[in-house]
């Protein structure tokens, strides 16, 4: 925003992150360069331990890079965090067990000081969005795993942050439910124009959702390929049988395989 003439929301330059552990340093991110524009849907894919989560956490200022630069809206990630720029969906649902579903969704709204009426209104809207009307008064453990995951997505959507960061949000769901939620997520993205960072293990999912696919490889974690998707914005599920789709999927798979190297 402060930098004139650029629409880059997230800009990483030569990003480095080394964890100091008891067994010695772990090089989780090495020389990561990436620029994400406003309104993009970016997927991160790569083998376990390649630094996908770590990169997402850097963007959200939950982790602090040990080298390079990272700006969000031209600010440091921490400044952006203080401006409440992020909605974050963790790998596990992580609902507070002592709050009802509605209470969980209200949590960020309370903290950010929304009015009572506004809170009720927003809870109703997002519950509808994720198909959980009528479950607001239930406690998390009264819902199945998939429903909990949807509630946690609703929680991240409730306060309308510009940037949505999602770490394998659909990992625990079966294929059918997953397809349906993928469609919903695309619709939401089209409607709101949010910038979305999305981690997944599934190649079809990454290809289906993204405008940009970032392939990573481990030890040290770095970006091996960035694929801009030529798919149109409007994507029916059937698009997965299209030529373009299969080609991109193939390219992602090759990139992944290369990254795996000797490691299984």
């Amino acid at each position, binding site marked *: 925003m402060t930098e004139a003439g650029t629409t880059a929301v997230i800009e990483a330059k030569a990003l480095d992150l080394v964890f100091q552990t008891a067994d010695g340093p772990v090089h989780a991110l090495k020389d990561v360069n990436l620029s994400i524009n406003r309104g993009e849907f970016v997927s991160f894919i790569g083998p376990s331990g390649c630094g996908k989560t770590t990169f997402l*956490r850097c963007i*959200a*200022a*939950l982790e602090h890079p040990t080298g390079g630069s990272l700006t969000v809206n031209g600010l440091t990630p921490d400044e952006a*965090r*203080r*401006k*409440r720029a*992020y*909605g*974050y969906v*963790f790998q*596990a649902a*992580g609902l*507070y*067990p*002592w*709050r*009802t579903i509605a209470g969980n969704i209200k*949590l*960020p709204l*309370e*903290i*950010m000081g929304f009015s009572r009426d506004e809170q009720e209104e927003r809870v109703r809207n997002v519950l509808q969005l994720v198909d959980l009307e009528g479950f607001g008064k239930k*406690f998390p*453990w009264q819902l199945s795993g998939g429903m909990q995951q949807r509630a946690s997505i609703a929680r991240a959507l409730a306060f309308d942050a510009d940037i949505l960061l999602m770490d394998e949000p659909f990992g625990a769901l079966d294929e059918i439910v997953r397809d349906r939620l993928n469609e919903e997520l695309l619709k939401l993205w089209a409607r709101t124009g949010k910038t979305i960072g999305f981690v997944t293990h599934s190649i079809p999912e990454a290809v289906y959702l993204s405008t940009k696919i970032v392939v990573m490889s481990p030890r040290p974690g770095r970006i091996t390929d960035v694929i801009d998707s030529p798919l149109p914005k409007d994507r029916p599920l059937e698009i997965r049988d299209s030529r373009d789709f299969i080609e991109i999927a193939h390219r992602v798979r090759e990139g992944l395989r290369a990254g795996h190297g000797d490691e299984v």
Partner: protein
Amino acid sequence: MRSLFPILTVVAAIIGVWYLAAIWMNATWVYDQAARDGREVGFSEVVGQTLNQERPVLPAPHQVAKGLWDGVAGQKVTSKRSLVYHGWVTLSATLLGFAFGSAAGILLAVGIVYNRAMDMSVMPWAIASQTIPILAIAPMIIVVLNSLGVTGIVPKAIISAYLSFFPVVVGMVKGLRSPDAMQLDLMRTYNANGAQTFGKLRLPSSMPYLFASLKVGVAASLVGTIVGELPTGAVAGLGSRLLSGSYYGQTVQIWAALFAAAILAASLVGIIGWVERVVLARMGLVR
């Protein structure tokens, strides 16, 4: 309710063993007495006598029950011989001390969780403080407080607080630290301030730990009060009943006071357990 039958069975077994032990332990005295009188006693006579001694080594269950009954129902509650009166004296100091102790414990725990220096310096010394024999310093505490003009139930309550704060600190520190990294990260992404993180995350997640330690704490409080009653000149309270019973060798009185104290402790723990169930159910933490 499901437990009622097992409990009754265990209690019945204990009472049975208790009777046998009473006969065995009290028999020596019966034989000694007979020997001093130069008499011979038969076994059945011995059994009869062991269960109804004035100063038994181990009073029989029915003697203790009678002592309890006499103490509770056989007197006006204002009477100095009433266990209700002495129980109330002990209970009031216990409640006050428990309030002090748990408040101090919670505050310390908050300090330990939020302040690195406190985290490092307080815990080892809190542990050391609990290894000090309280009975040894209780008289000194009473004397010092007396010289500062603090008398009545407060000195007892302070000793009781001293014993009860520790379990609360330990449990509460554990509880306040129980949120996992992800739950804390969530608060960070909301840019929640310290008070919000405390009120909306740490405090609610510490509740199960808090109640568990309050139960331990209230029992410790009661013991503290009883200990505190000894150096105040054994004026009133279950502690002084124990002591005067001990001084005059009135075993039945000791055991009655002992059981009264245990019943009191069990009721206090029961009340906290009930509050726990209500609160946790409200919070949706009971399934």
